[in-house]
């Protein structure tokens, strides 16, 4: 799979990443040894049992936190701080938007900090808000909007920033099911339209299979890669059609099984022959 790709195709490379938190009660190993590559333009989901270090992983990839050992390489360069070509969308939409700025100013702030002039800023903001279906509320404050709309603002901000890679940390975990389906389709359409690379962290197995071209399953803490599955669902996805397909059910079944194994403390490195029962490789 991944290893067969040529090197120039790889955008993000996580190499033997390990993260240990020093705590008063002794060091806690959140991530033991993670290695995977992300190709340019890929849509990959990361799932894992709760407490499997998903957020730690994203923080290290995004340069907000330094790994204890190992490294993250983005576009040939080692990540030491937040890279310019990366955008991050958090689960807590209410806390990731600036309450004192209007929607359009929230979207425009990273552009302003990047030294982009007012004319281009306006253009990009309008475009991004249009893309997420929020062209009608540029003058509102984020807290005047519903949860789903707030998360759209956060996505618009990421889109306007024009990153090469978009990291999403359980972005839809706090919105209702209906809104969630809409937002999932929105992210797929943004990914298709802009040719981004997306790394989408979730704890929802259905969501990971529905969204991703690939699902990386993490073990429970201390974390390693439990399994790496290619999702061979059709490119165009539909909440009703796709979710009732046979392959969807098969993938879902497989991912679910792996997560259950992970929860019980089973890890791929222990008994390799049993764990590598992939449905499609």
């Amino acid at each position, binding site marked *: 799979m991944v290893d067969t790709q040529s090197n120039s195709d790889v955008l993000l490379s996580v190499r033997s990443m390990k993260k240990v938190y020093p705590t008063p009660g002794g060091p806690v190993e959140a991530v033991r040894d993670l290695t995977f590559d992300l190709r340019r333009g890929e849509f990959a989901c990361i799932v894992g049992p709760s407490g499997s270090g998903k957020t730690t992983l994203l923080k290290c990839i995004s340069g*907000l936190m330094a790994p204890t050992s190992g490294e993250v390489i983005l576009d040939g360069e080692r990540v030491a701080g937040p890279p310019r070509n990366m955008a991050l969308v958090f689960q807590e939409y209410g806390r990731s938007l600036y309450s004192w700025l209007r929607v359009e100013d929230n979207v425009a702030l990273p552009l302003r900090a990047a030294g982009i002039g007012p004319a281009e800023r306006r253009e990009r903001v309008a475009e991004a808000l249009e893309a997420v279906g929020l062209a009608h509320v540029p003058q509102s404050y984020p807290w005047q909007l519903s949860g789903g709309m707030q998360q759209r603002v956060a996505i618009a901000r990421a889109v306007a920033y024009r990153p090469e890679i978009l990291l999403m940390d359980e972005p839809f975990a706090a919105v209702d099911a209906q809104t969630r389906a809409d937002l999932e389709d929105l992210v797929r359409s943004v990914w298709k339209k802009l040719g981004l690379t997306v790394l989408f962290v979730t704890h929802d197995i259905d969501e990971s299979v529905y969204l991703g071209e690939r699902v990386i399953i993490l073990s429970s803490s201390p974390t390693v890669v439990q399994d790496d599955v290619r999702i061979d669902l059709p490119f165009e996805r539909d909440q009703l059609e796709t979710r009732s397909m046979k392959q969807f059910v098969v993938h879902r079944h497989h991912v679910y099984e792996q997560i259950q194994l992970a929860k019980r403390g089973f890890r791929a490195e222990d008994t390799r022959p049993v764990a590598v029962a992939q449905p499609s490789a």
Partner: protein
Amino acid sequence: MNKARSISAMVALPIVLVLLWWVATLGNSNPFIPKPVALLTDLWETWANSRFLEHVVPSIVRLLSGLSIAIVGGIVLGVLIGSNLTVRKIMGPILEFVRAIPPPVLLPVLMMVIGIGDETKVFLIALGCLWPVLLNTVDGVRSVDPVLRDTTSSYNIGGLTRLRFFLLPAALPRIVTGVRLSLPIALILMVASEMYAATNGLGFSIIYFQRTFQNGPMWAGVVVLGLVGIIMALAFRWFERRILSWYYAQRELETSG
């Protein structure tokens, strides 16, 4: 309707108290005890003339100068200390020490060092008002939401843009609280500093009337002082509602929803 109601609720108790005061002092002839009607006459006759310009305006200028210095200094130092652990560690003990000294105690010392002019009074007001602003700014900066801080860092928003659009607005509710706490301190230090070696000002006038046994004008001076305090508090509340409109509107929405 609602507004009329809240205003009447606000003034009801003061009216009752003044009435009680009036009744209690009706037949009293003790010159040291103030009476409402006489006080009003004194207030008008003593203060509603050039004395206002000569003695109230200089006091207000001192107060506002000292307060402005404290606000600017408190915010600048607070942001530095709040966002930098090393600065916090170095400055901590010194700040604790200086803060433990009650500002009026410094007055005689300051008069010898800086002189008996306005600088001493302004400095004293600034010093006393610095602490609430400084400590609240430090807390405000330290307690910014970690998710928002990560968001800001992940988009490489740094330097002055970060300060102006993230750090200061995020800490603003706390900064405003600090300033509100410093208002009464400013008033107290203004009067106290004017009671020593001053040639004008509210504090000077009150002491002057007291020493020359002009009890009516003295009491009227105390009332003027109270009025200055109330006007200052109301003006600040109005200003606060304006610059923190997003904060109050959001909170209202959260508590009602």
